[in-house]
């Protein structure tokens, strides 16, 4: 009986080990190759272990491109965009979930319809608008166009709906205004939902590619993804240098992910299946 309850699947385990190894292999290759010398790279048969563990390739990255600047740009922009987006979304979601106001249904449908339009459609006029407003190559220009709040608003809305109205009413009886109810009752009671939405928003901004590509000409304004794109031509495909840059971009994300695996998965299942 106990064998039936906890069956062992040797082939399943072997297969999964094999496929997990394939998934991780590129990262292992990157990790080792970031230390290789040009001679190691051109060696035949391929050299797996670098001949020395020196940080020359990393130094090369910093010499070729303002890597720290790209990193700082990406982190600052992602954080600011996430905070703004979640703040705007949470307020809107609260109003839609708990308040009564004219045109509510129409506005909600209007918001939902924005999800149908792919980025490439809006990006053409947005570039013109940004150019007219003098926002090309500015942080404001990079930020404003990324504040797509519809999806996070929907996500928070569906969560705020589950907060009992009695909780809101009780606070109202105690003399709270609606804004205070939002701040003191709703937000503290939705930490998971806010967390999930924030993680989703942060990852979207961290990976954002098309808009930063369009709106930046100045090298100093580039974000990490854009900086890495141009690094290929700027290094003439010196792979060991590319690997050092790639490693510095990937490892922090992987470390955070390993500690917050549950949250990452949750943000996928919540955002992925509810649209």
């Amino acid at each position, binding site marked *: 009986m106990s064998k039936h309850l906890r069956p062992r699947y040797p082939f399943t385990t072997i297969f999964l080990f094999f496929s997990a190894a394939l998934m991780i292999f590129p990262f292992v290759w990157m990790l080792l190759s970031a230390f290789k010398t040009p001679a190691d790279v051109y060696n035949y048969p391929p050299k797996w272990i670098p001949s020395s563990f020196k940080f020359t390739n990393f130094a090369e990255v910093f010499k070729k491109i303002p890597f720290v600047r790209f990193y700082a740009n990406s982190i600052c922009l992602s954080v600011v965009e996430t905070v703004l987006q979640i703040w705007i979304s949470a307020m809107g979601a609260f109003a839609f979930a708990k308040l009564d106001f004219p045109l509510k249904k129409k506005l909600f449908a209007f918001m939902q319809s924005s999800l149908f339009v*792919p980025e490439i459609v809006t990006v053409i006029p947005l570039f013109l608008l940004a150019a007219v407003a003098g926002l090309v190559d500015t942080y404001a220009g990079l930020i404003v166009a990324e504040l797509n709040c519809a999806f996070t608003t929907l996500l928070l809305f569906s969560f705020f709906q589950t907060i009992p109205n009695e909780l809101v009413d009780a606070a109202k009886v105690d003399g709270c205004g609606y804004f205070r109810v939002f701040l003191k009752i709703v937000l503290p009671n939705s930490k998971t939902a806010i967390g999930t939405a924030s993680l989703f928003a942060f990852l979207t901004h961290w990976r954002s590619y098309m808009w930063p590509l369009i709106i930046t000409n100045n090298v100093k304004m580039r974000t990490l993804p854009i900086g890495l794109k141009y690094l290929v031509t700027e290094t003439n495909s010196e792979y060991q240098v590319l690997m050092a840059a790639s490693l510095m971009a990937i490892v922090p994300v992987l470390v955070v992910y390993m500690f917050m695996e549950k949250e990452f998965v949750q943000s*996928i299942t919540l955002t992925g299946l509810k649209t």
Partner: protein
Amino acid sequence: MKHNQATKVYDLKKEQRRAAAVMVTPLLITLVLLFLLPVVLVLIMSFTNWSMTTTSRAYVGFRNFLFVLNDGRFWKAFGNTLFYTGIKLVVDTGLALFIAILLDRKIRFRRFFRIAHFAPVVVPITASSLIWLWFYDPGIGPLNQLLNLLGLPSLQWLYSEKTALLSVILFSVWKGLGYNVILFLAGLQSIPESYLEAARIDGANERQVFRKVKLPLLAPVTSFIVMMGIINCFKVFTEVDVMTPNHGPLESTLLLVTYIYDQSFTRGKMGRGAAAAIVLFLVIFAFTMLQRILGRKEVSFE
């Protein structure tokens, strides 16, 4: 007393409206600025000869749409996108379902397997595609060395029009597989144990439980994943742009979004780009509607 209550209700309504006005306004501003205004503008632009290099903004009727629909490059991009979508969907969905089924079993190292399969999803595409650029190098790439080791001839990967798009797809499957694994796994794990127990009590063996109970209940998740997969494939941009910045050999990796980007921003023909973007929107919209209609038959476990 009665009068008092009435004014109170009225006051509450007024207060709600006032609070809502304050709290919804920022959201509305972003929607108008980033959605309504751009959509109106893109429609207008598609009927003009709007260009980045000149100042002419003349009305040209349907000329842009006619240009796009008669442009061989557009149809090439369309064909490439369909090819990309077809291959990616079959391989990605099939593999993801298979791996999710395996991960659903009570096995050891499950957490490690899950983390490993999902890791490529979380890292930035531009960073991980640098690794694959090396993998695909015809001269010193490990993939060709592996092929030679197995006694197979070298491939040109991204540098041949026959294999360039397939190479991008392979990268794309590696990068995106974990996402669908997680969704399938969530679908499998949301099936209540009681359903499976009931089938077992009725004498079904594990294989039958899987085929007659689990798979049918997984149908809505699968249809959702397939539909979202199609829509997302039509929007692919980042990986093709990083791996083949010049649309690959003989433009073999030119996709719809890269075509639109090329028209609007590289060539500066924003009117044509806008028209092509609207065509793409209509295609995606049709698929979205199809998904909504099919999605109505949602299975509920409550």
